[in-house]
């Protein structure tokens, strides 16, 4: 999820104004950041209603905790950190969740470049597969994977957001990748087990 520099400048300006008590500026931030924050909540919680509630609560907590915001940090990243903590708390409180295709059906994805019926079906299958994979990870590992692969945040920033050390994030990321690969293998009953080596690039 790439953001252009002018949007970052605007975000920083609104954050400054909001810190000085401008409620309208914070409402602009909510408008600008609603998709990334909601998307993070949805990817972590796998339920639209709960994601909406968590995203709303995250923005409320961010608004009330504006005095703790460090202006040297990107406001969007700080909001994502608040939302990630909110989701981790909710995941810890609730029983093992389940996410089926019916939950994916109603979601409002952003416009696709090729929104034909075939691509929609493929996308839904991917969503269901990924959601089922993420479901198997611990709340913190789920947050790390989401922040790394959807938001492309540096490891240091993920560590700061989740109150972990960078080495702990690296080690959790390594373990999560392995878990995801193993579960993916089981879920798709991979065909290449005895085939030729794949062309997926090595970590060189």
């Amino acid at each position, binding site marked *: 999820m790439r953001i252009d520099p002018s949007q970052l400048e605007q975000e920083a300006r609104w954050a400054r104004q909001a810190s000085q008590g401008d409620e309208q500026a914070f409402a602009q931030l909510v408008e600008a950041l609603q998709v990334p924050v*909601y998307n993070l909540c949805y990817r972590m919680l796998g339920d639209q209603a709960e994601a909406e509630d968590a995203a709303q609560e995250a923005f409320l907590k961010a608004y009330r905790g504006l005095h703790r915001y460090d202006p040297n940090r990107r406001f969007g990243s700080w909001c994502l950190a608040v939302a990630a903590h909110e989701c981790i708390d909710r995941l810890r409180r609730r029983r093992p969740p389940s996410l089926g295709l019916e939950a994916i059906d109603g979601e409002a*994805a*952003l416009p696709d470049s090729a929104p034909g019926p075939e691509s929609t079906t493929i996308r839904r299958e991917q969503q269901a*597969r990924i959601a089922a994979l993420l479901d198997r990870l611990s709340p913190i590992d789920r947050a790390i994977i989401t922040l790394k692969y959807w938001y492309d945040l540096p490891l240091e920033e993920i560590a700061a957001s989740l109150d972990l050390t960078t080495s702990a994030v690296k080690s959790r990321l390594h373990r999560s*990748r392995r878990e995801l690969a193993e579960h*993916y293998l089981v879920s798709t009953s*991979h065909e290449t087990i005895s085939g030729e080596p794949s062309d*997926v690039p*090595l970590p*060189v």
Partner: protein
Amino acid sequence: MSHSPYDSWLFSDEPLQAREAEELRHHLASCPHCRALQTAWGEAHLDLMRLPAVAPSPGFSGRWEARLSFDRRRRARRQSIAFLAVLGAGLAGAILGCAWLGICSPLRWLDLGDLLTGGVRWMANTTALYYVGRQILSSLAGPISPVAIFGGGGIVTAAAAGLVGAWLLVIYQINWSQAQKGAQR
């Protein structure tokens, strides 16, 4: 077959050295398990990267503003309840403290009931004296001229001031003589 350290290298974030990459390629060519894991992670990674961002239903920021104002009202109500609870607890504590002093303390005169009745009695007596004095003055206002009233008032005030002065002088002399005796000792 041992998969170590190849299975660890497969999921590493750190770039591999040329020799390690060569060893891994060699291992993958002969190990179906690690090859399957590598392919699975590659596809899961692609799926992760391909998924589009999901947007909330329209009107999210409006709902947030409504939630903010609801939250403010709820907090104000909670603060009022907390304030009333503290006030009530304080009053109850004060009453219980007074009652305890009245029951347990040897200073029985601190009894709250006595203090209250004494205070009410004093106020009633003062009010009664005021009314009696006002009646006397109003009955004298007719036969006696205003000059005589003011003159008489002045004399009474001067006499009272003289008495107070004499009283202060006596107290001073007593204290002074006691201080002299102490110095002589």
